[in-house]
């Protein structure tokens, strides 16, 4: 913005009243937009909280699903919680080391050209629709080996990877070079400097990114439909078979004719939202904490 352009904004005084009216109108519109959005967004959250809240109970958290059960049978979504725990846990176990290694390579070793290529590739990966990833894993694993929690978690790991990578590479870039120089200066080899000095500085940032990625994939349905939806009833923990998961359960229950199933879907949705909320709050807390650490360490 140059000063010349700014001066062109000055208008003759006789149009002042009109200009003020336009200004007030636009401000009103912005207020309205905000009110409208807050209403709608609040409506969603309130619907889930109100309908799901009354359903949350000990049984809901500890009992498994029963199909075509009479209303007096106590049931919950424990099998889905267990399955989600396994699938998301395995996905994290796959994506985390992989993403961190890529970030180390990109930030510490790679020449500029390769760095850009990898960054762009992972950006493209982040933009690939989840349903396409699901179909990819279907073709890669499910067609030959059948559905399993392993297949599902691999699909989720593919989605997590760009998140983990990006958050790690961003904090690695923040680590001041003085630290690297200090490490090398006292004679530590490069790998010890990287793993022992540089990487620990980034733990907060990596945790932040991982937490956000976990929050994101915990609610993903599309990649699991083709890879991990043919679950058997009851509590199961074995990842070599397909396991029920919370988002798939919500998707299935929403298609039921039974209002009790809808009620369980709401409760599951509420649990998901609470989990995601908790995860993003802790991520934010971690982020501010770790940034401060790195800044202080640099001084």
């Amino acid at each position, binding site marked *: 913005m140059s000063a010349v352009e700014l001066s062109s904004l000055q208008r003759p005084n006789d149009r002042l009243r009109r200009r003020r009216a336009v200004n007030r109108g636009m401000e009103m519109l912005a207020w309205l937009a905000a009110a409208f959005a807050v209403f709608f967004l609040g409506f969603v959250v309130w619907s889930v909280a109100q309908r799901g809240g009354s359903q949350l109970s000990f049984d809901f958290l500890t009992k498994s699903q029963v199909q075509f059960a009479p209303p007096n049978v106590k049931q919950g979504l424990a099998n889905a919680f267990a399955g989600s725990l396994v699938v998301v846990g395995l996905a994290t176990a796959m994506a985390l080391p992989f993403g961190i290694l890529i970030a180390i390579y990109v930030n510490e070793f790679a020449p500029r050209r390769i760095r850009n290529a990898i960054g762009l590739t992972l950006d493209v990966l982040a933009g690939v629709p989840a349903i396409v990833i699901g179909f990819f894993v279907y073709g*890669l694993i499910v067609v030959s080996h059948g559905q399993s929690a392993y297949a599902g978690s691999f699909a989720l790991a593919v989605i997590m990877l760009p998140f983990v990578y990006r958050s790690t590479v961003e904090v690695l870039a923040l680590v001041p070079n003085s630290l690297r120089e200090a490490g*090398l200066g006292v004679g530590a080899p490069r790998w010890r400097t990287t793993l022992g000095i540089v990487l620990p500085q980034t733990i907060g940032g990596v945790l932040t990114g991982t937490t956000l990625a976990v929050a994101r994939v915990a609610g993903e349905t599309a990649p699991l439909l083709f890879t991990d939806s043919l679950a058997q009833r009851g509590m199961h923990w074995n990842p070599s078979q397909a396991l029920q998961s919370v988002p798939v359960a919500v998707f299935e229950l929403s298609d039921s004719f039974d209002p009790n199933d809808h009620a369980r879907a709401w409760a599951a949705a509420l649990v998901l939202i609470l989990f995601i909320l908790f995860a993003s709050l802790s991520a934010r807390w971690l982020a501010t904490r770790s940034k401060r650490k790195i800044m202080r360490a640099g001084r």
Partner: protein
Amino acid sequence: MSSLDATTSAARRPFPGRRARFGDLVLQGTAGIASLGALVLVGLIVWKIVAGSEPSRRAFGLPFIWHVVWNPVHGREAYGAGSFLFGTAVTSIGALLLATPIALGIALFLSELAPGWIRGPVTALVETLAAIPSVVIGLWGVLVLAPILRDHVDPALHSALGFVPLFGPASYGTNVFTAIVVLTIMILPIIASISRELFLSVPSELKEGALGLGTTRWEMVRGVVFPYAGGGVAAAMTLGFGRAVGEAIAVAMVIGDGLGIHVNLFDTGQTLGGKIALNYQGAGSALATSSLIYLALILLVFSILVNLLAQFIVRRAARRKGLA
């Protein structure tokens, strides 16, 4: 979601002439292999989708893309993406048109107008909404929103604006319009939160300078904030659009799985992602499965293009700002 700021600058490789030690080689090797793995992974995705769609591409060729047909009946099998491409375009463009002005309104409200005590909670609400899973929005859409639209909003729009073919007779609870509203709610927080950050990043000297020259707040926004943040807002819109195009679950839950090109927004429809999502339990024939993968291929190509476009917009905006 893609990063607007993935590449950050930091000085690299400041240590010349160190002895290459074994440990260094191991670390650099594993990290390099992992990076290679990422490239291979993306290549594998493209290859699997391209290879999987081969039978369908051989059977129907390029006209698949615009043919309005999806007939899985034994002996009459014929598939085409036309109907779903149309549905995807209508729902995504519709959602973008609805979401952008509202999102800009919220962003301006949060960055320029809102009293301090409102800012925090509203910002938190918007960010929370960006994180709500699509299956939850879909659940809300089909059980709460759809009946309201069907019983009140759709008939009202039809009787008030029925002369426009878009607002034809309404009877379905799940229809294209419901999908547009659901997608709007999903992309609104994305565009709003990115725009808010962009608006806040406008240097305050510029803003104060404009106000000091006697402009009204709106004139300042139009003359300073919008031009400054314009490129970023365009990129945010592109990302929101990409998200809407790629969304499968929430759309599948509320759009009603119709086939054909219908101008009436209150008719049922289907999108690329929605069609794929609804057939996960088995498509009934090998050619149908392959055709679904062909749909996924279209979606994949489109998502890559959208992503590159967003990157391009961001880079160009950054370069222009650098020159200014």
